[in-house]
């Protein structure tokens, strides 16, 4: 109890804050390197993204400071209320959203725009932490598991309706948190199995796949035939798995591809697998797009991104010498593809340092989570770590061709006010809660 007597600011976790400041600084330097021109007369140019990012950092630090001064009980007490408001805002966004590049995930007030989907992560984390840490919640019960999943996935569905698939996928990372809190491993495996099934059903001809799946089921049934004879449950499971797989690959995947996913998303997924979009899913162009040729833009993006990173070599081309990023060859290079700037200018060494900083931050957050007395803070910490991990892993993987290009940002580094602000708030709430780790927060 001695730590409690220390002042609030001395109880804040220095390592997390230090790593946070490092990442934000790297971010601003990276955006600067992409935007700076030798013809610029001054470093302070308000029309440049890096200056706006600095201003957003100012807002973030200000809000962070307010969070530090807030009572730690506030976050758990108001978790559900904030979550409800957040869901309401997401619903409003579906109808009132501003159209930005085909997605309606932005709310605009005058020249100010923000993306509720980014901020919703915070409140979903708080709500999930609150729900799982409630005394009456027994996470071994199926009902509670469903409620947990519902809390995590409701925003995802709403964001999906805003046609911002990448952002929606982030919410699946909460299953990793639920796994930590006792969700059986099987559910995660089923999740991975489903992804594997999606991929195979895209890669392999549908009828061939049905035959393969049936054959596989018969083979497994033959191998475990003694078990099947003894247990009816096993038979039911096997048959239902087969049935689900068939329905999934024959009905669900084509339905999703034909009716739900957007043209660019289909292209991204196929570009990652590395095959042409089949005619079946090749959507007709929107009437306004008639002039645009059919170009696989995401393939181009990934190629340019790989050129930028690959040409960096071991030690990079040096700061402000990145020929690809500086000259706008990489699309979206100060938001989704900002990692190219690091990879090109600082090479493998620089990229590795960045990755190590991220991993250190995430492991430190897990460490913070595990040292809490209160479950609420621990669960919240895991939420933060998992969200960061998903963003970090998918964003960097997509720049180097390991994942499909889904538009999600690199935390703290990508340009964008909503992104920087929401990640900062995530971190500052965590730091605030951690400062009171000896107090039991309910």
């Amino acid at each position, binding site marked *: 109890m001695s730590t409690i007597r220390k002042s609030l600011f001395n109880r804040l976790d220095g390592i997390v804050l230090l790593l946070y400041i490092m990442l934000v600084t790297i971010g601003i330097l990276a955006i600067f390197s992409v935007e700076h021109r030798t013809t610029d007369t001054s470093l302070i140019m308000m029309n440049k993204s890096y200056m706006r990012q600095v201003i957003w950092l100012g807002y973030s630090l200000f809000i962070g400071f307010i969070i530090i001064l807030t009572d730690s009980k506030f976050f758990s007490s108001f978790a559900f209320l904030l979550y409800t408001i957040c869901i309401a805002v997401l619903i409003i966004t579906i109808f009132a959203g501003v159209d930005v590049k085909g997605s309606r995930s932005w709310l605009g007030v005058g020249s100010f725009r923000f993306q509720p989907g980014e901020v919703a992560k915070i409140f979903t984390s708080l709500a999930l932490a609150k729900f799982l840490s409630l005394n009456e919640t027994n996470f071994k019960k199926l009902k509670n598991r469903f409620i947990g999943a519902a809390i995590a996935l409701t925003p995802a569905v709403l964001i999906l309706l805003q046609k911002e698939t990448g952002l929606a996928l982030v919410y699946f990372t909460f299953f990793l948190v639920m*796994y930590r809190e006792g969700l059986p491993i099987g559910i995660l495996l089923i999740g991975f199995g489903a992804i594997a099934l999606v991929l195979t059903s895209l890669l392999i001809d549908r009828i061939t796949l049905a035959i393969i799946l049936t054959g596989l089921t018969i083979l497994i049934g033959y191998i475990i035939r003694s078990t099947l004879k003894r247990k009816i449950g096993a038979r039911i499971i096997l048959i239902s798995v087969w049935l689900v797989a068939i329905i999934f690959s024959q009905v669900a995947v084509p339905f999703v591809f034909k009716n739900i996913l957007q043209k660019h998303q289909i292209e991204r997924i196929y570009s990652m697998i590395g095959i042409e979009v089949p005619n079946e899913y090749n959507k007709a162009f929107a009437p306004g797009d008639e002039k645009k040729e059919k170009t696989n833009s995401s393939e181009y993006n990934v190629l340019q991104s790989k050129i930028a*990173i690959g*040409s960096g*070599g071991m030690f990079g081309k040096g700061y402000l010498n990145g020929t690809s990023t500086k000259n706008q060859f990489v699309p979206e290079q100060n938001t989704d593809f900002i990692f190219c700037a690091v990879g090109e200018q600082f090479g493998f060494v620089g990229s590795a340092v960045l990755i190590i900083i991220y991993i250190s931050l995430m492991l430190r957050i897990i460490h913070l989570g595990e040292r809490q007395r209160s479950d609420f803070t621990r669960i919240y910490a895991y939420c933060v770590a998992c969200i960061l991990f998903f963003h970090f892993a998918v964003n960097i993987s997509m720049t180097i*061709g390991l994942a499909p290009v889904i538009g999600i940002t690199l935390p703290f580094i990508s340009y964008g006010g909503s992104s920087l602000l929401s990640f900062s708030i995530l971190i500052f709430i965590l730091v605030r809660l951690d400062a009171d780790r000896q107090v039991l927060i309910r």
Partner: protein
Amino acid sequence: MSLTANPRRYVISIIFIGVAIVMLLRLFFLQNFEPKYKILANDIAIYKKVVYPPRGVIIDRKGRTLLSNTPIYDLMITPRNVPKTLDTAELCASLNIDKPAYESILGKVLVRNLEVRQSPFMELLNEEQTARFQENAYKFPGFELIERNIRIYEKPIAGLMLGYIGEVSPEMLKKPRYASYRQGDYTGLSGLELQYEEVLRGQRGVHYLERDKFNRPRDPYRGGELDSQEISGKQLELYLDMELQEYAEKLMANKIGSIVAIDPKTGGILAMVSSPTYDPNLLRGKARSRNYAKLYREATRPLFNRATQAMYPPGSTIKPFTGLVALNVGAITPNYGYPCHGGYGGCSRKIACEHSDAGHAANFRAALAHSCNSYFCHIFRMTVDNNEGQTVKQGLQLWHDYYTSFAYGRQTGIDIPYEGKGLVPDSNLYNKMYNKSWNSCTIVFVGMGQGELLLTPLQMANGMCIIANKGYYYTPHFVKSIGKNEKDTLLRKYQEKHVVLNIPDTTFTIVQQAMQDVVDHGTAGGAKIDGITVCAKTGTAENKAVVNGEVIKMQNHSMFVAFAPRENPKIAIAVAIENSGYGATWAAPIASLVMEKYLKDSVTYKRKAVEDKMMNAKLINRYVYTIDSVIRLRDQMVYEAKVERKRIKDSISNAETNSLYNKWINYKLKRKKGI
């Protein structure tokens, strides 16, 4: 919940670390083992820009610019960036073209290049077009003016000597001299521009620029550390005096002929005129080939450099040299006289002399002053027949050696290309001409500058340098310094003193004295300049033209050679005016005016009348045009006959091969049947 470690914590941590390791491995291979990305990155982002330095400027002896560069503008178009709403009418108006022309050019551009590439829309815009376009440039996106340099001749003088530039031809590119050139590069094609191409051209620079996604060049790549800087062409400083050259060209207007003026102390050419001249500005830019063809067809042949290529019989202007050699080999003494009474009868044919009064050839000085034909024919015979036991061949050879050392009958080595050799006959030539049966009487005309002897005006002027310098000369040349360096290796050969066969100063003094007499009380009274001792010799050269195999005797060439001042020679000059009459009438006053202009900076007022007379005289005979058209007609016919002969020959040889082939086929067939 307990505070004990939960194993799932480690599972999650391991997932985090595992993914990070996968990414690091991928990055490691991507960044270190896939060099194609480096190449691709350079390909897309680095733009190699070749920068042409300005060509060297040519200035005269007083630093006045003769030939320099001026920026001109090409209008470039990037069709993709041209908006549909472009006001074509206004664009056409500012370019002074009409709408169909605009559309046809645009069509051509689109066919030749892609929409996205910048390509020339109009080349070499004139001043008015440039100014009007620049005023309104902001209204025409997609169009851009690109600046480049072209040569500009400050005054329309010395065109043949300065030369011109043009695009290097595919044939030239095959030669080693043009190894570093590329299609579309410009190179000197004649005159000094060709001779000093290597120094005038400078060195191309290569700049590596980064370009962006839209192909716009931006910053220098890696701060420009890989760039090679362009080096400007070096400046050529000439001995030529711009004012003098202009004045000389004015004097030669409407005459066919040439003037060569040399500074005897350096061999530097002060003025060189080949008349008729042309405006060198005609031979630049896009009008060059058209104007060239036009000039080439002119009957007066303005593209033919008469100063270095035309070969004239020197006439009496050779007499100082006939005397010089005769005196030096000991054939005569200065006091030697010949009793001329209006002709030379030493040989079977009588050679006429202009003078018949007794004593006009009483000694060498008098004979030269009065230009006695008899005297010089005689002493030439005495030279070649000199010394007992020496054949005429040996005598002629000795004389030939002297003339060769005067740079007669060979190229002087002047620094503009295509120099004529002239002709100094030797025994081989006469053996061929006269089937080996000839003697000093056969070749006697050479002594008075007629016969087989032919010289270029440049050689005549150089000869004057030799007499002025008393026995040496420097190879005549234009360039004084290259890039302000007078000791450039290219100029070394022009700084070598050439000493002629050992002739003592005293002999030269005698000849100089005689030449001074020519002006003071001889044939060249019109060449007198107040206060300056001029040494000179007039000449009136008989000449013939051969038209369609017929030899036609033409009006005499008016010739004149001189140098001044005698005490401290500063200018040596040769003037030749074709088919105009006596040397004293035209060539002498012109030479004298040029010398006066050079030595005194201006011509005295009292000679104004002479000056006007010379400038206004029109001495081009009408038959020049007739002869020219006849010659051209004949050339055309010869060419056509040649083509016809070749055609007949080809068809015959074709027929032969065909019949051979037929024979072979028949032979084969027969053998087949036989079997």
